[in-house]
Structure formats: C-alpha cells, structure tokens
C-alpha cells in the first residue's frame, strides 16, 4: 500500500488528487516503475507523466528522482515546477 498525490496542473490533467495503490512492493521497487505503471492506465496519465513533461516527484515529502527506491507505506507526489513566493 502506498499513497500517491497529484498537485496543481498535474492534478487537473490526471483528474484525481490522491489515491491509495494496493500493490506488492517487489513489483514497484522505484519511482521509475511506479511511473511506468501509472502511464499504462490511460492517455491522461501517459501524457501528464511523459518524460518530455517538466514534472517533479517527491517521496515522503523529499524531492526524489526516477531512481529513488519506494516502499510500502510511502507517500509519493507528482507536481509541476513550483511557483510560490
């Protein structure tokens, strides 16, 4: 089980802000494998998380990369470049 969050324009593109993924950790060892699974769902996900798009990913509220390992219980978030301040 892991929690996946989507923010801002990326949230609007995929149509949800939060979901629980019920999965075996072994099938999703890292951020790259999670992205592959999400993009396989439909064209909204495929386009929103395309490698050409300028999105960011955080694991447990720390900035992460494709190679970052993920585990059961983790919180993974996808979002566009930040624009606060």
């Amino acid at each position, binding site marked *: 089980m892991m929690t996946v*969050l989507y*923010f*801002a*324009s990326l949230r609007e593109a995929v149509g949800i802000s939060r979901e629980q993924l019920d999965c075996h950790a072994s099938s999703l060892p890292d951020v790259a494998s999670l992205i592959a699974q999400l993009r396989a769902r439909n064209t909204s996900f495929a386009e929103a998380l395309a490698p050409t798009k*300028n999105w960011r990913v*955080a694991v447990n*509220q*720390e*900035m992460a990369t494709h190679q970052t390992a993920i585990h059961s219980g983790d919180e993974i*978030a996808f*979002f*566009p*470049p*930040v*624009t*606060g*301040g």
Partner: protein
Amino acid sequence: MSVPIAPQTVVRIEVREADFDLNAELAAMQRGRTDIGAVCSFIGLVRDVNAGSSIDALTLEHYPGMTEKALTKIVAEASARWPLQGVTVIHRVGKLVAAANIVLVLVASAHRQAAFNGCEFIMDFLKTDAPFWKQENTETGLRWVDARESDTVALQRWNQN
C-alpha cells in the same frame, strides 16, 4: 545532507490563509532582546498584471507537510551560512486578490550583510524548492503560472559562496 537549524537562530515558519502583520512579526522577533542590529524583510504581493494579462486574484495551492519541511530545510541552510538571530517565514495559501500579501520573510542579524544575504537566499530557494503553485484569475479564465527560468538562474550565485 540536511543541516539542522543553528542553535542561535530563532525560527518561526507558518503556512496559512490569514494575512500577516509586519509590525507584529517584527515586534515578536525583537521582544526581550537588544542585540539585533539589522532586520531585512521581504514581502511578495499579488500584482494586477502578469505575463501580459490582467489579474483579479490568484489561488495558491500547496502540498501540506512538505511545504513546512521544505521551508525548514531552506531556513536551516541559511542559518548555517550566516549568523542569523531570527528568521520568520509566513506563506499564505488560498484565494488572494490583487495587492494582497503572499509571503513574508523576515531575517535579523547583528550586521546588515548577513540579514540581506539570509533573506535573499531564503526567497531564492523558496521560489524553486517549496511546493506552492499559483493559479491566476485572468480576463480569459484560470491559468496556472509557469515557473520562471530566472528563478533557477538566481540560485547559481549561492554555489559560489
């Protein structure tokens, strides 16, 4: 990787809908001490025009939890680089009309250069590392604000120190 907040730096970080009061925050930072020589503050406001469109208001979305973590990390880094006596960061979220306050960064030090540097450093990294997103109400509808290349460029000077 992540440095702790320096023990001499009194830190206050808040993410909230309510407006802030600069005088009140300044007074809170100064209360009971007479060793502060310099306070630099920065306020970011909602401008009525951005990227060629007129703006009525904007909505600030954020990532609760990560926002506070990211701001704490930035402030800790600043407190390790300069002798800061106090740092206050308040960032508003929700709907903000033109001319409303968005963010306050207040930095106190014995000397002015540390106060200026600390304040600029925190703003520069807040702009690129803290998970906030602005959506503008323009004449032609809602529009997510694009990240600015100049904000990424602004970080480079801090690598030279």
